[in-house]
């Protein structure tokens, strides 16, 4: 593999990891209450 392909794979992989981290963090069971809270709180703003 040449340098360009390695860079390409590294970037793609890196992005994928970031995405997985966001999904993981968002959907962690422990976080459920917290992450869903705003949708209830926004209902009583007026």
């Amino acid at each position: 593999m040449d340098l360009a392909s390695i860079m390409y794979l590294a970037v793609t992989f890196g992005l994928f990891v970031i995405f997985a981290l966001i999904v993981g963090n968002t959907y962690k069971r422990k976080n459920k209450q917290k992450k869903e809270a705003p949708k209830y709180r926004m209902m009583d703003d007026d």
Partner: protein
Amino acid sequence: MWEKKPILLMLMATAAILVGTTITMILPFVWVNTEADRIEGVTPYTPLEQEGRDIYMREGCNNCHTQTVRPLVAEVLRYGDYSKSGEFVYDRPFLWGSKRTGPDLARLGGKYPDAWHYQHMETPRSIFPKTNMPAYGWLSNNALKPDKVRRKMQVLGFPHSEAQIAELATKNEMDAIIAYMQKLGSDIPWRQTGRTEIVGELRNPFSGADQTTLAGWRPLYQSNCSACHGTNMEGGIGPELVGDYYDEETLFRIIYDGIAAGGMPAYANLGSERVWQLVNLIKYDQSTGD
């Protein structure tokens, strides 16, 4: 985490936006418009042409006309050789457009004689009665401003001589926009190299057609040729058409390939059948011309 920290969230959003931006918008500068793109023969616009280009932009011709030919069979047949990156290096900005209400103009230069353009710009409907292109005759009333154009050429860094600038005083906006149109796409010699070859022997498929059949083909002449050769082939922008001057085969070649140097457009895109009908009409129809 970030859902409680707006600044952090915005920084992250900026980072997300910048990834695709860097790769697809910034990175290409490394390759585009570099030496590798350069095409011999592509020259900057002259003062008259550049001013014509600016008028084209001012009038928003790009809302109806595109300026890039894609490498697709029907498109190359209709407009000419497909566009290359190097042809646009002096275009600030590009004028490729996004809508073809009118035809593509990327290969317009040299397709028609100047006289055709003057007539078409003045009254497009005199050439195509059903076109929706607006009339631009009023451009002839507007003089050019040499000093302004000089300044533009300096900002663009295009070569120009004082003689060229001085000459502008004698021209109007119509002259400028037509000069620009004659420049479009003609920096590469595609007309000479790109001709569609007619292969095989040429044989008139309509030999001996009677006068009524011929009369049925007259609308074909009226819609494509009469603007230049007159309603009765008596001549106008192009010469009078006299059937006896040429044999069938030569006539076919003239119409099919055009006479690039003389301002006679090529009509290969009508298809050989219809070109043969025109040949027969010119040579044998007794109601017109000779």
